């Protein structure tokens, strides 16, 4: 995901990811809307095709931030920091989307937009951690200290991701458990719905890759301007 030190424009791969992701987005929407309704929830379950991929990508994005923050701390290469920052930003957007879609689903299902059960609480905490990440970045003037402090938050803050992911199992909360359980590899879902979900996951992953690369490129431009 790294780029040359001083790119002039986003490279071909970035455009390819973005174009493919944007082109497949309506297809994903069509697949999601033509998937069969759920036995219990009816058509309401379709929000899952947006909710699950965004939540997953939020987790993934924060994991990438964690990795590149570690890399930055040990290699001190500003490029790693730019990727970490870009990924955290996109992750924050996806996490926000997951929270919003979750709330829209919760209102007709549980009767309330928000309830303080473990999954929601840990996700909100996660969101707050990465909001703090950007507040910190904005507050420190010295670029090197800023990168170091941000990397430390990127590493320490990631601890909340597995907790958020596992919270539905540990506390047996109101939120349903994973339909595709990554820890045991079991899938609890009808094949047609699974296909639609996986397709949407692919689309959002493509978009994520494109966005992160593009944001990394913008960050490189910003850094060049800051130095000049």
């Amino acid at each position, binding site marked *: 995901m790294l780029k040359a030190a001083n790119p002039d424009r986003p490279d071909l791969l970035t455009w390819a990811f973005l174009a493919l992701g944007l082109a497949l987005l309506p297809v994903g929407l069509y697949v999601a809307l033509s998937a069969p309704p759920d036995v219990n929830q009816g058509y309401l379950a379709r929000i899952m095709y947006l909710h699950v991929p965004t939540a997953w990508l939020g987790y993934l994005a924060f994991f990438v931030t964690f990795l590149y923050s570690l890399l930055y*701390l*040990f290699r001190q290469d500003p490029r790693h920091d730019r990727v970490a920052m870009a990924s955290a930003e996109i992750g924050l957007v996806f996490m926000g989307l997951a929270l919003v879609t979750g709330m829209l689903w919760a209102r007709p299902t549980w009767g309330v937009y928000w309830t303080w059960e473990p999954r929601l*609480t*840990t996700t909100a*905490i996660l969101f*707050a*951690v990465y*909001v*703090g990440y950007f*507040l*910190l970045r904005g*507050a*420190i003037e*010295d670029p*090197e*200290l800023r990168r*170091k*402090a941000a*990397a*430390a*938050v990127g*590493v*320490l*803050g990631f*601890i*909340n991701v597995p*907790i958020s992911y596992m919270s539905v199992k540990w506390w047996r909360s109101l939120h349903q458990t994973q339909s595709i359980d990554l820890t045991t590899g079991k899938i609890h879902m009808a094949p047609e719905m699974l296909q639609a979900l996986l397709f949407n996951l692919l689309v959002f992953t493509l978009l994520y890759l494109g966005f992160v690369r593009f944001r990394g490129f913008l960050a490189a431009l910003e850094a060049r301007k800051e130095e000049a």
Partner: protein
Amino acid sequence: MRRVLLLALRDLRLEVRDRSGLLSLLAFFAVMLFIMALALGPEEGSLRRAAPGVLWVALAFMSTLLSTRAFALEVEDGTLDDLLLTPGGKEWIYFGKLLFQVLLLLPLSLLALFMAAGLFYLPLEQGLPLFLTLVLGVLGYASVATFYAGLLARLRGREALLPLLLFSLVVPVVLASVRATAGLLEGLPLGEVASWWQLLLVFDVVYVTASALLFPVVLEG
């Protein structure tokens, strides 16, 4: 190991000799409890229900104030560089400061617990489990606080930035501590509270190890 102890004891001695800092912390805590007690109303039931939350929020504020003191003197007197110049690894500086913070926070939080018990009608029958919760919670809090205090030691305006960073990272610790305390006060069996202790312990171990590993990397340069 000896260095860790020496550093912690030196800081403790400085802090105890100074006194004004500690006293202002305690006064701050007491005033905060008073305000909370006034705000939450005179009924015994509602006060008792709010007590664990109030206790831990007040403790969190107090330890944030305390954490800025971990490195403030070092930077003022320019002794941080001397510490960094000592040969060998740098982890011991972190452990020394962490020990100092924990040693200072524990008695303070015990006092705080008694104050809260007096004002909020808390029953203190389960003293030992409550103390265990205090130890685990304080350790979890101090681990992140010390780390960030070191990281931001040389930064101007760190007093504003530190709470912001700390609170978001430390929410899980506060959450687990509040739940454990509330469970104890409601008289739940220890088996049910133990899961919160486990969670606290996991956080403590992870935060202490991660901070100790990252500390040298972050502090140099």
